[in-house]
C-alpha cells in the first residue's frame, strides 16, 4: 500500500477508551488496511487491528438479496438504501501519543473524545513515529492478548516499513526489538518474523 503524502481523514471516533478506539468510516468500505498507523485528532496514535462492516441497526439483521442479480454491483444498484443501512467500522489499538513536539510510544493520559476525526498518517509522520526502528509500542500489542495480535503486529511493521527508504533495515531493527520482548518465546517470535518480508 502506498501511504498518502498528506493527512487523509477517513472517519471519526465512536467509542473511546485509553487502550482502544472504535472508529466509523465516513464511506462504506473505505477503511484503512490492517496495521495502518492512524492519528485520532492531533495527539493520539493507534493502529488498525480490525475492520468490520455491520448493519447500522442491530435489530434489523441483513438478509441476502442477490438471488436474482447477475453481479454484486447489481445488488447495490438495485438497493441504493443499502449504503445507508450499513456501516464500516475500524477497531484501533492505541499505541502512542504526541506530547508537544515529541512522539511517545506508550498510552496517552486520556482517550480522544467521541467524534474526534481519524486520519491516516502520511509517510513523513510514520517515519517520525517509528524513527530508528523503535518498537516499544510492540509490548502494548503483545501483552493485550488479542487472538490475532501477532498478525496485527506484523501488519503494523509491514505497513510502517513502506514509509522508509530501506524497509529491510527498518524491519530488522524493529524485529530485533520485538525479539527482546519475546525472548522466552522463540516459537511466537518465529510466527511474527515469518509474516515479514525480511530480505535476508
Amino acid at each position, binding site marked *: 500500500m502506498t501511504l498518502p503524502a498528506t493527512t487523509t481523514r477517513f472517519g471519526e471516533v465512536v467509542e473511546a477508551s485509553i487502550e482502544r478506539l472504535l472508529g466509523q468510516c465516513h464511506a462504506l468500505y473505505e477503511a484503512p488496511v490492517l496495521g495502518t498507523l492512524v492519528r485520532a485528532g492531533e495527539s493520539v496514535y493507534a493502529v488498525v487491528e480490525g475492520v468490520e462492516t455491520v448493519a447500522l441497526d442491530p435489530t434489523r439483521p441483513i438478509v441476502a438479496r442477490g438471488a436474482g442479480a447477475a453481479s454484486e454491483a447489481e445488488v447495490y444498484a438495485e438497493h441504493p438504501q443499502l449504503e445507508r443501512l450499513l456501516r464500516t467500522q475500524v477497531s484501533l489499538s492505541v499505541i502512542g501519543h504526541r506530547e508537544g513536539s515529541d512522539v511517545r510510544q506508550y498510552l496517552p493520559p486520556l482517550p480522544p473524545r467521541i467524534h474526534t476525526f481519524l486520519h491516516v498518517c502520511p509517510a513523513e509522520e510514520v517515519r517520525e513515529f517509528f524513527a530508528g526502528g523503535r518498537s516499544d509500542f510492540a509490548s502494548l500489542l503483545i501483552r493485550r492478548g488479542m487472538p490475532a495480535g501477532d498478525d496485527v503486529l506484523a501488519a503494523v511493521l509491514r505497513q510502517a516499513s513502506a514509509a522508509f527508504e530501506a524497509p529491510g533495515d527498518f524491519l530488522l531493527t524493529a524485529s530485533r526489538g520485538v525479539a527482546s520482548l519475546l*525472548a522466552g518465546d*522463540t516459537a511466537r517470535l518465529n510466527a511474527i518474523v515469518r509474516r515479514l518480508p*525480511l530480505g535476508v
Partner: protein
Amino acid sequence: MGVDAASPLGTVVGGSLSRGLDVRLGSAEAVEQAKVGTFVTIQGAGSRYFGIITDLRLDAADQRLASAMADADAALASVLSGTSAYSLATVSLNLTTGVGGEAPQPAKSLPGHFSAVHRASNEDVQAIFGSEDAWHIYIGSPLDMEDTRVCLDLRKFVERSNGVFGKSGTGKSFLTRILLAGILQRGVATNLVFDMHSEYGWQTKTESGHAAKGLKQLFPSRVAVFTMDPASARRRGVQTDFDVQIGYDEIEPEDIAILAQTLKITELGVQACYTLRSRFGASWILDFLKQPSDELSENIGGSSSTLDALRQRLGQLQRLDFMRDHGQGAVKRVLDHLADGRHVVLEFGRYGDDLTAYLLVANLITRRIHEEYRKRTEQALAADGKEPEPLVITIEEAHRFLGPGVAGQTIFGTIAREMRKYHVTLLVVDQRPSGIDDEVLSQVGTRITCQLDNDRDVDAVLGGASGARELKSVLSRLEPRQQALMFGHALPMPVVIRTRDYDEALYAEMSVPGAGAAPGRDKRDLFG
C-alpha cells in the same frame, strides 16, 4: 580492527569474582573480536577493573530455542542473533585501580551490572605492566594489539626461579634468548647458561632460515662462551673463550646419583659410590676403575656383582672426550668469570644430545657455584659486606634435574627451593613440565608458557596458580608459534602475548647501554 577502542565489547550481566564475570557481547563484530586471552578493562562506578577473557559461550534467553529454531530460516536467525540468542564471555578479573589512578591492586570487588567492557588500550597495558625503563624490558604484545608493548619487570623476575615452558618449536628458546639478553643488558643479574643445543652463545638459524645472533655477538665483551666440544665450535665458526675439561677427581658421588637413571645405576650402586669416595678420596673413580671387584668387595663390603655393574656403568664416562684424570680448573674459571660480572654460556656441542654429559657437567658446576654463593652470602652477612650479584642459571630439559625422583638429591632441587636466599635462581626451560617435581614447580615464580599439547603438562604448569581453571582454557588455545601465556611473581596479572621478534630492532636496543652496565664494559664492546 573493526571495533574501535571507544565502542564497548559488551556489558557485565552476572558472574562472580571466583568464577569470572559474565559479559554479554554486544555487536556481531564484538563477538568475533573477543578471543580467549583478550585483555579487557571494565569501567565500574568508581573503580576500573582489568581482566582477561577466559571463556566464551553461546546462550539463549529461551531454553527451548534449540527445538524452536529447528525450522527457522535466515530471517529469524538474523533477528535472534544478538537479541535472545547471544554470546557470553567469561572475564577473569585480576586487578583494579581507583579513580585517582593509583597503582593497580588485586581485584577484591566487582563492577556492577551493565558496566561497559572494553578492550584494553595501550595506556591500560602500560599502567599495569609498566613501560620500558631501566628494569622493564619489552617482551611482546597482547593479542591483537601489535602496537602495544607488554613489559616485564626484570628485577622482580630474577628474585625467584622462573620457568619457560612449551613444546618443541613454539619459540621457547627465542623467548629465553630475549629474557637472557634483557637480563644481561639491564644488568639485573649474571647469567650462566647450560646451553644444551648450542643456541644461546653464538648465532643460530631461525625456523624461517634467518640467522639469529647469540649473546656473545650482542655483548662481545661481557659474555664468555665456554665449550665442552671445541671441534664443534670450530666447525660452526664460534669464538670460544675456554675449552672445558672435567677431571675425574672433580666428580662427587652426588653427581653420579643424578646420573643413576641415565646410566642405569642401582640404588646399591649409588650407595657404593659414597663408600668409595670416603675410602679413596678425590680420585675415587679412577682408583675404583683400576681395582678388581673381589678385593674391593672384601674391603668395603657390598657384593662384587654390584661393583662390577657400577664399574661398567662408570666406565661409560670414559667415552666423554672432555674427561681428564685431573681437573683443569674449568669450574674455577666459570666461577671467576661470574664473580667478575661476566656472563657465561657453556656450549655442549655434540654432547647436547648426550644426557649423561649434560647432567654431569651442569650438576657438577652448579654444585660448586652453590657452595661458593652460600659461602659469599654468609660472609657478607657476618661482615656486613657486599652480597654477591644475583645469578641466574639457565637449564634446559629441566625435568631431568628436577624430576620427582631426583629433585630431592640434586643441587638444582636445592636451588629451586632455597637458593633465593643466596642470590642464585634458576631459569628452567622445559617441554615436559609434568616431569618436574611438584614442590620445585611450586617454587617457580614467573611462568612463561608457550603451547603445550599434553594435558598433564598443562596441569603441571598451572599447578598452584590462582585461577588455574580459567587459565587452562587460555593456555590450551595458544597458537603453536610465538604466543605465550605469562603469569606469576613478576607480573601483576596473567597475560597472553605474541612474543616480540628476535630481530634487528632488538639488536639495536641491546646495543644501548642498560641501567646496570658499567661504562667501561660497553666501551670494550664498541672498540673490541
